[in-house]
């Protein structure tokens, strides 16, 4: 469904206003974070005054993810949150220190909004959820629990440690990786056999493995919320037709600790199972840029590297280059802004990248 030009203009105006507000928030001594206030002191310009539209964000250099690894967490806390303990969420960390993002309520905002996009017949209200995937220090664990709570019920958890899986695969210990995956899936089967669960969050590979051990429909599953790794069109088709048997709802998402989550638009036959994801703008903006000149946007339906800007009162992260590439998609349905499709690890065509089961 094409989006009216007026809606696109309104969304852009909204984004510009939101950008101004968030930049002023992070760069004002009354509300801002030590990191950005210190950054502004060293810069030759004043973001609080000079950022008027989202395009002005391009004046920032790319956000360096090492800052999240090397600097203390407190440095990111906006003054306005002083006195409120924060959550610490991690990403990466297969080797060495993981990157950490602090937060308070952002995940709740993201997942409450996401809940409104779910169909009740696929994700029935007041029904139990099961999360089979990376819990531990990840934002996702609290986010899924919040989603279950918002929809009136609770969630069971089966943990999968993706750092261990990546180590096993990198070390070519495929048998061990398989055994670990079986261990995770078997625990989920036990839950599904003994508890009434209607909604499932998991990763594509784990979903496939679970579907081979138990008939998901007969086990009571009516909707699957899936994310975490590459889902190319044929694999999406396989999951929908073969694993979910065209009768269980499928809600693929793209997201991470730094962004939140980008929901997908419902597939139409014309999509040929190519999923388009739209970020929760204005809180996060995804741009598909030329990897060799990242100030240049790619044209619609062209491949490029994904660049993320996060704009919330809790966290400001301009122009972070994701380790992903994707196709730039035009505004669609209720999303009057750019989306991304067929997300895969950056450079996937050139080299083999370990994604494991996560």
């Amino acid at each position, binding site marked *: 469904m094409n989006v009216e030009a007026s809606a696109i203009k309104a969304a852009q105006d909204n984004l510009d206003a939101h950008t101004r507000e968030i930049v002023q928030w992070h760069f004002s001594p009354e509300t801002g974070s030590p990191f950005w206030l210190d950054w502004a002191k060293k810069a030759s310009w004043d973001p609080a005054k000079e950022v008027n539209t989202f395009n002005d964000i391009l004046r920032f250099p790319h956000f360096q993810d090492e800052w999240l690894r090397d600097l203390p967490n407190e440095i990111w806390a906006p003054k306005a949150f002083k006195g409120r303990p924060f959550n610490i969420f991690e990403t990466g960390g297969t080797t060495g220190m993981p990157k950490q993002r602090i937060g308070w309520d952002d995940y709740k905002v993201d997942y409450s909004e996401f809940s409104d996009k779910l169909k009740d017949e696929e994700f029935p209200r007041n029904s139990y959820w099961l999360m089979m995937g990376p819990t531990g220090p990840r934002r996702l664990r609290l986010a899924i629990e919040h989603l279950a709570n918002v929809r009136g019920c609770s969630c069971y958890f089966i943990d999968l440690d993706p750092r261990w899986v990546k180590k096993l695969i990198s070390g070519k210990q495929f048998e061990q990786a398989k055994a670990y995956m079986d261990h995770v899936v078997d625990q989920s089967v036990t839950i599904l056999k003994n508890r009434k669960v209607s909604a499932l969050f998991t990763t594509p590979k784990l979903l*496939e493995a679970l579907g*081979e051990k138990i008939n998901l429909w007969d086990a009571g599953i009516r909707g699957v919320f899936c994310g975490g790794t590459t889902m*190319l*069109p*044929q*694999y999406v*088709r*396989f999951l929908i037709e*073969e*694993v979910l048997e065209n009768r269980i709802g499928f809600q693929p998402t793209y997201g991470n600790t730094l962004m939140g989550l980008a929901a997908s638009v419902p597939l139409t036959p014309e999509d*040929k*199972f190519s999923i388009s994801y739209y970020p929760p703008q204005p809180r996060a903006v995804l741009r598909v840029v030329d990897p060799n000149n990242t100030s240049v946007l790619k044209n619609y339906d062209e491949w490029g590297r994904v660049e993320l800007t996060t704009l919330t009162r809790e966290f400001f992260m301009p122009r972070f280059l994701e380790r992903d590439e994707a196709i730039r998609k035009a505004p669609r349905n209720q999303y009057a802004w750019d989306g991304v499709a067929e997300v895969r690890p950056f450079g996937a065509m050139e080299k083999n990248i370990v994604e494991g089961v996560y």
Partner: protein
Amino acid sequence: MTLPHIPALRRGRAYESLDKAQLLDHKTGKVLTEISQVNAGIIRKDLARVSESRAALKKFTTEQLIEIAAKAGEFFLNGSLPLGDKGHMQSAQEYVETLSSTSGLPHIMVRRNMSKIHHALTNMRTVLNGLTRGLDLEILDKGFGKQFGTPISYYPTTQALGLVMPSNSPAVNSLWLAAIVLKTPVIIKPGKEEPWTPYRLIQAFIAAGCPAEAFGFYPTDHEGAGEILKSCGRALIFGDKATTDRYANNPAIQVHGPGYSKVLIGDDQIDRWPEYIDMIAGSIADNGGRSCINASAVVVPKFGREIAEALGKKLGPVAPLAATDENARLSGFANVKMAEYIDNAIEQDLKTSGATDVTAAHRGGSRKVEYEGGVYLRPTVIHCDTFAHPLANREFLCPYASVVEVPQNQMLDKIGPSLVVTAITKDPKFTDALLDSPLIERLNIGPISTMKISWDQPHEGNMFEFLYKRRSIERSDF
């Protein structure tokens, strides 16, 4: 005209994937077809219902399936058969041309391979007789019976035969044909560059009346191939030494790796060596030197240098010809990197002293050549001083052989596992030793090409013994 599309076949049903590979003309790069690729999950899902495929075949008697195979042979050799799911048909001549243009095999070699497959299909009774040692085939239909005065019962070891096929030579498909007649569905992963032959064979079987459910055809990746090997119960894989070693101790997987086939001449016949040069040259170079039954070493007690020189003189001048030329003897390389790898490997090992490329002088140029846009490797005969030389017991996907002098009484200690050995000797003691050797899978005694296939004897493993096991049975009338 749209491009043909070769689908996966899931219990015989066409499945068009969103993920497709293209197959190109090895000379022009023109796209000739698209092939649907499927993931391992689809194979796992289908294998869960493979008993339905077997049930479809069990409705036929072995006799009926022998007749179907014979009809399929005629369709395969001469018929026009469906090519993919977009309404294309493929005549026998089109099959020859297309396979030639993607594999590099000249037409004449494709036709020879077709004839071998046709012969296997139309002589299935003879083939089964050889495999079962004359078993009354009704016993297979009933599961039990009486023969030679003894109760006999056989049971299937598997519900399906998995096949991870190579791309090098179409005739390798003759290995699985008997499985269909033995009521065993096939789950085929075609070679990346050679989907044509198994697809055409499947269509020929279906046209002849075989149930489509008996066929799984899954162009897939490494994980998918692994799934076929792991889950089929019985499977065949074709591969290099690393592959062979990986599955060597798995009785459910029959491995077809390098053959290391050889020609041996005994002390009693060595003085007559000039009479055997044509036979030896054919063993080395027929079918473009691409088969595991091509000789890759000639082991002689003396006259090594002279024999090498004679072979070099005969094979060295062989050069690429047009694919349509009836005299073409070399096959082009669809995978140019493979040709480069082979050429480099030979050159590298020639740096180890004790080996001479005797074909070089007769070639008048490099081993790797380009001809009409294709890449070819010209025949290579290496004289090695000892069997320990790295080039003495090697096999490459081209006409290649070493010639090595080894005293007759040491030959069987040196040669190692050999798929085919042609031993030219009348010496009873040497013959006895050859017959006793567990290293030789197929033995030709006398000047018989290593390339000769006897359909009335098991070759490259006994498919019947692989797919069926005998059990003891007692029945009482009550």
